[in-house]
């Protein structure tokens, strides 16, 4: 008799990982809450979170979108980045960005840098530099759009039933004036990098945990019934500013985020951790869930993660009626829409 005797199968690699068919691997052992199909599910975070958003609405869930772009014809909204996330905030890579967004939405903070100019003369929002493909005519237009956006962000936080946040990065560029963190380094798509005004940071565990505690504490105050699902993005860094191999930097970054997610989950009963990171990166699948670049997650990986989500979080697992689609509308070589990723902009200009 030893402490491992009689433990359930999930405690053991051979029983729950290596002897399980790849498509059946399910690392969720318990959930803190269930999610009904009517629950308003809001999503935010890094590129990987876009896959979650898209899949949720595709399988009949109440994907909560507060900034819909209804002033545009429906066919144009996706191109203008409406509906990519619950509000039009673009990718929120770091927890510091989330913290600033929350404070800005509730009028507690406004960044010093309010608009960046692009090489073509148009202006963008430094905190969501790619959401408006055509840019804005002037800084006032940027501010006006940002105010409308923040109103939608506030609504999202106030009214969502479940907030799904995907932690993406620990590396970021910040303003030395007020600590504002940008999703993209100044100068990549807009703005000007100024060593006196801008700096690089690589957030550690304590900082990430502190940001999450801050946001979640305030969120619970304004939305007492909210539940939160944390995930860690399995997408490696496209580039690191640390002087080390990008895969090494990735491992550090994801480890920090994974530890922080675990800490917050353990200390906060209404927060759960969903192991999509483990589903995608786990050695059991032999890299089957990455595209040829070994970085982008393919649709099979997303499907597996969502399958596990449905099986574990949805009490009624019968699918909602999926929209019928004729083969004529789905040509051979069908591919879901391209994921928009600010990080990609670095590769386009530098590599």
């Amino acid at each position, binding site marked *: 008799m030893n402490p491992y005797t009689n433990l359930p199968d999930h405690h053991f690699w051979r029983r729950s990982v290596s002897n399980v068919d*790849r498509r059946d691997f399910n690392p969720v052992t318990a959930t803190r809450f269930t999610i009904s199909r009517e629950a308003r599910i809001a999503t935010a975070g890094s590129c990987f979170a876009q896959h979650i958003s898209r899949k949720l609405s595709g399988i009949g869930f109440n994907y909560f979108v507060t900034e819909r772009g209804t002033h545009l014809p429906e066919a144009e909204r996706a191109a203008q980045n409406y509906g990519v996330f619950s509000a039009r905030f673009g990718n929120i890579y770091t927890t510091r960005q989330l913290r600033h967004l929350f404070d800005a939405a509730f009028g507690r903070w406004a960044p010093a840098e309010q608009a960046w100019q692009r090489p073509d003369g148009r202006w963008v929002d430094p905190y969501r530099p790619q959401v408006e493909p055509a840019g804005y005519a002037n800084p006032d237009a940027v501010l006006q759009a940002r105010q409308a956006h923040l109103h939608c962000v506030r609504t999202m936080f106030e009214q969502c039933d479940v907030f799904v946040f995907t932690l993406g990065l620990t590396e970021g560029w910040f303003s030395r004036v007020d600590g504002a963190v940008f999703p993209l380094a100044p100068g990549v798509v807009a703005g000007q990098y100024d060593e006196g005004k801008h700096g690089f940071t690589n957030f550690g565990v304590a900082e990430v945990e502190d940001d999450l505690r801050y946001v979640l504490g305030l969120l619970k105050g304004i939305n007492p019934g909210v539940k939160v699902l944390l995930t860690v993005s399995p997408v490696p860094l496209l580039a690191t500013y640390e002087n080390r191999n990008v895969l090494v930097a990735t491992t550090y970054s994801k480890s920090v985020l994974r530890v922080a997610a675990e800490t917050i989950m353990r200390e906060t009963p209404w927060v759960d951790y969903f192991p999509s990171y483990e589903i995608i990166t786990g050695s059991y699948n032999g890299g089957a869930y990455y595209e040829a670049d070994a970085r982008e997650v393919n649709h*099979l990986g997303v*499907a597996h993660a969502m399958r596990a989500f449905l099986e574990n979080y949805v009490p009624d697992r019968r699918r909602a009626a*999926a*929209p019928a689609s004729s*083969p*004529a509308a789905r040509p051979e070589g069908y591919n879901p829409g391209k994921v928009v990723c600010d990080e990609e902009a670095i590769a386009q200009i530098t590599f």
Partner: protein
Amino acid sequence: MRDLERWMVIANCQTQGLSNCLQLLNPGVTVEASDIWHFQSQATRDPAHWAAHMMSYDCILLSDEITALGLVDFSACPRVVRIPPIGFAGYHPDLCYVYAEGKGVQTPLDDYHSIVAFAAFKMGLTEADALALYNARMFEAGGYLDMWAIDKGHLFAHFDRYGYDMAAPFRQWAMRESFMFTLNHPRIECLYDLARVATTKAGRTPVDSPARPHDNLRNAQIFPVYPEIAEACGVEGSTLFKVAGQYRLLSLQEFVHASFEAYRGYGADVLDTTEQFKGRYNAILAAI
């Protein structure tokens, strides 16, 4: 150098692949093959000759289906090893057979039909209407998304009856891509793993290597794993059908059209599918 033993493999469409795999795994053995059609034809014509012929082999490897024909008493042979044929519908839950008055109806993929197309024809739908049925909602209504788990259970029970532990190989088969071209045409890797186990049952140590025989069944029909089914199985999907003996693909539209043309030649009233597929067929009918 003269080989130590002579073996004979008698099985279904998997015979040639099995034989090639057994040959590769057993350098000191001469492996010969006779598929069920050849065996049935020859053994029926001259059962006594075939009974004597079987006795000349050191080992006969065959499926129970061959024994059940009752044409030869294999129990008299020096050594008999049972090999389970591989059948798995998890990737192709839409695949079925269709008969008219006891005879198989042919599509461009010969005996292979689409349950959805067949059900649509029986219901009097147009080809365009039939095409519109190929979607996740219909597949779910037909129980297609459950077939992988269900048929895996059947397959493993089948392996158990033959005394083959294929759990670890199965996990590898399913790791990267669909391991079946149709519900009864497995990839060569599956037959290789089966042959490895059969070799130990025949009392020899398999000589393993990275080499593999050519995948002869790849030249035969390839029924697509529809994207909705494929995603649930964790593999890439398609709606393209490969014709046997040619590297030529048909679109779903072409396949449905050709199926309808075949059915029109008989009339809906005389067409039926077999019991094995009735559950899914009836579910599709009910969902249309």
